[in-house]
């Protein structure tokens, strides 16, 4: 599954069964991000599959 990480501007290829597992695999604190699956905001228990388009948005203030 291709995952876009907004804070780094990079795409990574990862296999994970759920949003929670994906964040754990990428070592990202769930408090600091929102996850968008196929253009919809989803919760951590949302299931993922290889065809999903996933974006990880940063919640930090711009300053």
């Amino acid at each position: 599954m291709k995952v876009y990480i907004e804070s780094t501007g990079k795409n990574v290829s990862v296999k994970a069964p759920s949003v929670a597992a994906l964040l754990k695999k990428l070592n990202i604190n769930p408090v600091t991000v929102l996850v968008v699956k196929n253009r919809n905001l989803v919760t951590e228990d949302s299931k993922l599959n290889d065809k999903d388009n996933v974006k990880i948005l940063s919640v930090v203030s711009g300053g």
Partner: protein
Amino acid sequence: MACKKCKSEPAFTLISGEKLCKHCFSHYFEKKVRKTMRQYELIEKGDRIAVALSGGKDSSVLLSILAGMWKERNDFYLFAILVDEGIKGYRPITQRFAQKLCRELGIKLYIISFKKELGYTLDGMVRKLDKGPCTICGTFRRYLLNTEARKLKANKIAFGHNADDEAQSIVMNLFRSNNAAAARLGVINGIKKDARFIPRIKPLYFMLEKETTAYSFLNNLIGEFKECPYTQLAYRGQVRDMLNAFESRHPGTKAGILSAFIETLPILKEYYKPGKEIAFCSKCNEPTSGEECMACRLLDELRKKK
């Protein structure tokens, strides 16, 4: 698990563990912001509110919610002020988003810049001064917002500060043993009323940064992601990371910090209340705690380093 209210697909999990769909979450968010505004009487009939707009998600969400209230109530006036600090590769992007948002919402936007008003960009100041960029930026932003808002006859300035910002400030002041600075925090800033000091209100005070970002995403109030290039240099960034690590392990940490702080804030405000008269800078006549304000002191330092 489905949305607790309507059983649709959930989009957000609250600290309580409740899940809400995009519509119910937006409703929850707006209801909570409006409750804060009612509880602290942040907007009153006849007010002229200047929103400190950066084009980032927090101030954009704030402007959008206040614009909605303005349309409903029509008994106060709303406009926005954007301060262009002169941060290469950062501010021009958020400024474009702010201009677009104001056009869409029908809000008058005033733009003031460090370069035009002070003679230097923030990037230029950071190169010359031996001070943290956030200290320099914060000093001049507050100074320019206060002078511009007063010129435009605003009686309140609304900031998009959220629960994360406030929890960070509380912890920073605690770590630095600076209770006098902590006394100036709260939903309404300032200790003393004076015509030259425009009170600052924070309607998003109890909203977590993650909630504000979710609301901005769900309501198309999010521009291109840009983090201020100076953020990581700041002490605040370290406190933010520490609190996020705690919040992850112990959900509700930030809300707990706010709740405990609000209980003690009246005591702090009373203890650090200035004397009968508020002090004013001997050079620019703006409110200050000393003889000369920080903005004038920094400007003097800049001129000496030319």
